[in-house]
């Protein structure tokens, strides 16, 4: 509770917290949706916003308000799968590299550096082109997870290195625990906050890539996501035909989502890193 109160002192945390709550509430409406957003022409097409269709309907005869709710839910599913699954690569790699050091560290960091350096976007596109039909929400999430671990592994590894510097591992080594078990038990409590902060970044990255891939037509297009909503709006020339509400809905939703996730990550990692906290100390007094 105290942590939450401290965090709420940061306007960015407060704003992102409120935006995320609203978006989550909106997306959870999809569980009570009166319509199925994958069925075309169930209702009148191209209706402007009205009391019946809050955000109008699109050229496929699908209610935009409700498909927005589904879109957020599905984009968040992709992001969560990508974020959570990538942790299963990030954490072991970081632990092994940071803990074992030496050759293990160099090899693992070379691999993660390669991931950082190579234009991953192209490789993901190459993969997506080949498995396009099978690219459901979960497979997309898994695919992104395979690529979204490298940066965080680096960040967490350096945190572990600094923990190691503090030298409280020696006793544990002497007591003869297994490497991984030891690393998990010793470091997890310290690394967990960092894991969460970086998780948010990966989620935002995954949502961004989902949108990009969808606009390139590289995922299953009948699933409503933020990306596929934009794809359909573009392919039906929504702007030219003056149906701005169709395009603007997913664009605004995604902008809100990106800002909220980014601010959440920045404010929480600033809270976790005492150095940047001290910097704010001086500022708050001057005001």
């Amino acid at each position: 509770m105290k942590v939450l109160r401290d965090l709420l002192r940061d306007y960015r945390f407060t704003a992102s917290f409120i935006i995320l709550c609203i978006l989550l509430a909106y997306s959870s409406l999809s569980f009570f949706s009166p319509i199925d957003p994958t069925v075309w022409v169930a209702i009148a097409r191209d209706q402007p916003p009205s009391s019946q269709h809050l955000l109008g309907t699109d050229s496929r005869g699908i209610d935009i308000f409700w498909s927005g709710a589904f879109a957020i839910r599905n984009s968040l599913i992709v992001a969560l799968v990508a974020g959570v699954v990538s942790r299963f690569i990030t954490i072991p790699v970081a632990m092994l590299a940071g803990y074992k050091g030496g050759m293990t560290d160099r090899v693992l960091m070379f691999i993660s550096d390669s991931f950082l350096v190579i234009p991953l976007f192209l490789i993901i596109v190459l993969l997506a082109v080949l498995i396009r039909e099978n690219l459901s929400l979960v497979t997309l999430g898994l695919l992104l997870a395979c690529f979204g671990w490298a940066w965080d592994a680096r960040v967490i590894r350096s945190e572990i290195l600094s923990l190691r510097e503090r030298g409280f591992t020696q006793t544990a080594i002497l007591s003869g625990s297994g490497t991984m078990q030891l690393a998990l038990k010793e470091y997890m409590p310290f690394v967990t906050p960092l894991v969460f902060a970086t998780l948010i970044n990966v989620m935002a990255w995954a949502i961004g890539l989902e949108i990009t891939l969808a606009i390139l037509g590289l995922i299953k297009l009948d699933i409503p996501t933020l990306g596929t909503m934009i794809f359909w709006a573009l392919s039906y020339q929504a702007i030219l035909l003056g149906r701005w509400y169709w395009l603007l809905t997913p664009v605004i939703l995604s902008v809100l989502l990106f800002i909220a996730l980014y601010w959440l990550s920045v404010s929480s990692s600033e809270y976790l890193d005492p150095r940047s906290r001290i910097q704010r100390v001086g500022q708050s007094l001057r005001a």
Partner: protein
Amino acid sequence: MLFIRRYLIPRLIQYVLVIFVGITAVFFIPRLLPTDPVARTIAELRSRGSYLDPASIDAMVADLTEMYGLEGSSFDQYIAFWQRLFRGDFGVSFFQFPTPVIQLIKAALPWTLGLLLVTTAIAWTAGILLGGVAGYFNRQGWSRALDVLAMVVRPMPYYVFAFILLLLFGYIFPLFPVAGGASIGRQPSFSWPYISDVLRHAFLPAMSLIILGVTAWFQTMKLVVQNLNAADFVQYARFGGIKERRIVSRYVIRNGMLPQITALALLIGQIFSGALITEIVFTYPGLGTLLYNAIMTGDYNLIMGITVFSIVAITTAILVIDLLYPLFDPRIRYN
């Protein structure tokens, strides 16, 4: 010499290794997937409604297998793949048959290179200057206002941001052309009308790359400089009554830009990806749009070619930046 052994050789090894690993990955990934590119291409053709009789399908499978370099064992293919790469041969495009992929890439490259180099140079320089000054004066109101602005712009992915600019200046205030690299039918020449036409077309894609870039460099630089403010040599210079302009330029920015050079090397791949996406939004005739067309037509060789080419190009760019770094840091030069 220590510099060569400690700095140069590790980087050259890294360079060769990254290219090797990257290209090997690109080679094997499609072969590990359940769908192969030949079946994909045929499915693609069918979905477009072309009628294919069984005999012609067989012939086509054979043709495509050859064209995609899928003959023989995986190992033979792999060797052949490298041999062709060293000759600069990426195969031929399927949908612009029989144009070699390398030729398409060569035609698109100047556009991407121009856009990428100019915007990255502007964004990096402007971000560093702005971030340096704002970081040094981080207690001032305007510096914090810039912070908030950056906080809003920074999280935007390339696609969404390019899109917003497109809506704003393409449709709502139609000031700039929204598509292409130059007006259709205009002959390339070194005349002002042609150059200004190219610049006008490049404006929106360049703007979206620059604004996002400046924001990102601004933020990282500002953070670095805020920490530099506490550095002993900056404090000492201030204490010594050195004029602030000089402290900002020679102490703060000069030192703060060193990690940004490293960061540029690390991020150039992402910046490149962003440029591709931005090109697609504005149908700018560079590699991005080429890639988009390749995706839309299922042109496997072309996608492969762009990917491999980009890996080599980006890795080389990183090597160049790494090799230039010692020019700015005497500690690396004389050690």
